């Protein structure tokens, strides 16, 4: 399932931009590929993340994947519910499964991201 109002990376992260704050998570396609998600390692507020650099990891039973940031900026919010309930990523990847909120430093980079249509093509949705 691909949501129209979001933008995407080729590493299967989604981003929702509201003003100059971006909310980031992984896509439905990604969570399906991972299988059962047991753990998420996220940065603390105040950490600086960079465009397409790893900001954390998501752990499935037999694999660990890096999470890549679609934006550059400062982490201003972290979904602390994911510590106790990583399964929220599975059941609600675009909703309760959100991971971090970032204050945008370089809005022009958003142009480098994929549209919903382009992402649909990538995952064959």
């Amino acid at each position: 399932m691909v949501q129209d109002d979001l933008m995407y990376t080729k590493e299967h992260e989604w981003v929702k931009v509201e003003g100059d704050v971006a909310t980031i998570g992984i896509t439905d396609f990604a969570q399906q590929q991972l299988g059962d998600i047991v753990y998420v390692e996220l940065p603390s507020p105040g950490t600086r993340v960079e465009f397409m650099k790893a900001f954390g990891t998501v752990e499935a039973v037999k694999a660990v994947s890096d999470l890549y940031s679609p934006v550059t900026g400062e982490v201003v919010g972290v979904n602390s519910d994911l510590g106790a309930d990583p399964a929220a990523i599975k059941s609600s990847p675009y909703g309760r499964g959100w991971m971090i909120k970032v204050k945008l430093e370089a809005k022009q980079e958003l142009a480098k991201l994929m549209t919903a249509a382009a992402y649909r093509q990538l995952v064959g949705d």
Partner: protein
Amino acid sequence: MLRAIGVAAFEDLLQDIPPELRLRGKLKLAPPLSELEARRHLEALAGRNASANQWLSFLGGGAYDHFVPSIVDEISSRAEFYTAYTPYQPEVSQGTLQTIYEYQSLIARLTGMEISNASLYDGGTAIAEAVLMANATNGRKEVVVSGCINPMRLAVLDTYLEASGITVRRTGWKGGATDPDEIAALVTGKTSCVVIENPNFFGVVEEGCAIAAAAREKGALFVVSVDPVSLGLLAPPSEYGADIVVGEGQALGSYVSFGGPCLGFISTRKEHIRRLPGRIVGKTVDKQGRPCFCLTLQTREQHIRREKATSNICSNQALVALRAAVHLCWLGKEGMRDLATQCLSKAVYAQKELARRGFDLHFNKPYFKEFAIKLPADSERVAASLAGERILAGVPLGRFYPEAGNSLLVSVTEKRTKAEIDRLADCLADAVRGEVV
């Protein structure tokens, strides 16, 4: 056999090896021996070894001559344990996995921590792994290390950290104990962890609480390397602020064996479980709801996490860990207290007898089962003289620290009798008299 597999000649099996790479002529080996001849030859070689059964040993410095009850050999010699290679598939290895789970539980309980792994190679690499773990946890690039830690283990730590970008700041050893003020002076906001050994290389009991406070003040983790036998009497490191406990488990049910195989153990709190290196056995239920065991949290390990793993270790010392587990069960809580008490009492008796004959303590500090004495003569020659009488008097400290002069590190375990200790004291006195003339 060739006929059975349908091959005409042996050379046909080598088809894939280019002819120019094949060995021409014969291997330069001695002719084959019969079983009788082979046995005679090996027994002659083995006969050149000195055994703690026939020699009187007061050697310490990391490996100790403790009593190994026959039950340890009996259980660990079972072929299912002794010869199995990497027996971790849960479908066929429930027995092995259960023994490791019990070993983990025993180590956690003994050290007062919440979790332990399935074991590491030895006490030296265990210290290194704890330092890597601290670095993985807080990302800081400096470690403050006690200079009173066993120098061979310090060397292992240096090797592990060589290309890591982590700076080691070491305290001095001259006082025989780690000075909490010296630690405090070295700890900064960049310190990942503080590491001590308790009792330390010189047998001295360290001031754990004060050192823990120095570490905590700047948010550094506190790593303590312990002698597990000492925990029969001394407070476990959990009680004085340790975040990670490591140690050498040879003293728990293994022979000295010329220094190996050893047993590294590591324990910590649950909050650090994702940084704990090595194998971990967990308890779960199978499809039918029956309790069972399996390796767990494997996403920590380097075969999955690769360069992001805390460590590249992908093995453990299962057989030696089994011996330790059997030994701990055989001892029980009271047995451990009794063992530690005997070691301490006999060490004190020995130290007093030696002092009576003029061999003073090098470090006037509380000790557990070993201590350093000052010799008025060349310690290597004195040790060699006693070795001529099949007595291993101790480890000359000058081998590691020339500034320690002619001091000898003497270790006394529960195996030593009063008569043996008196013999050591008398022979040392005689040898020194002979040298000083």
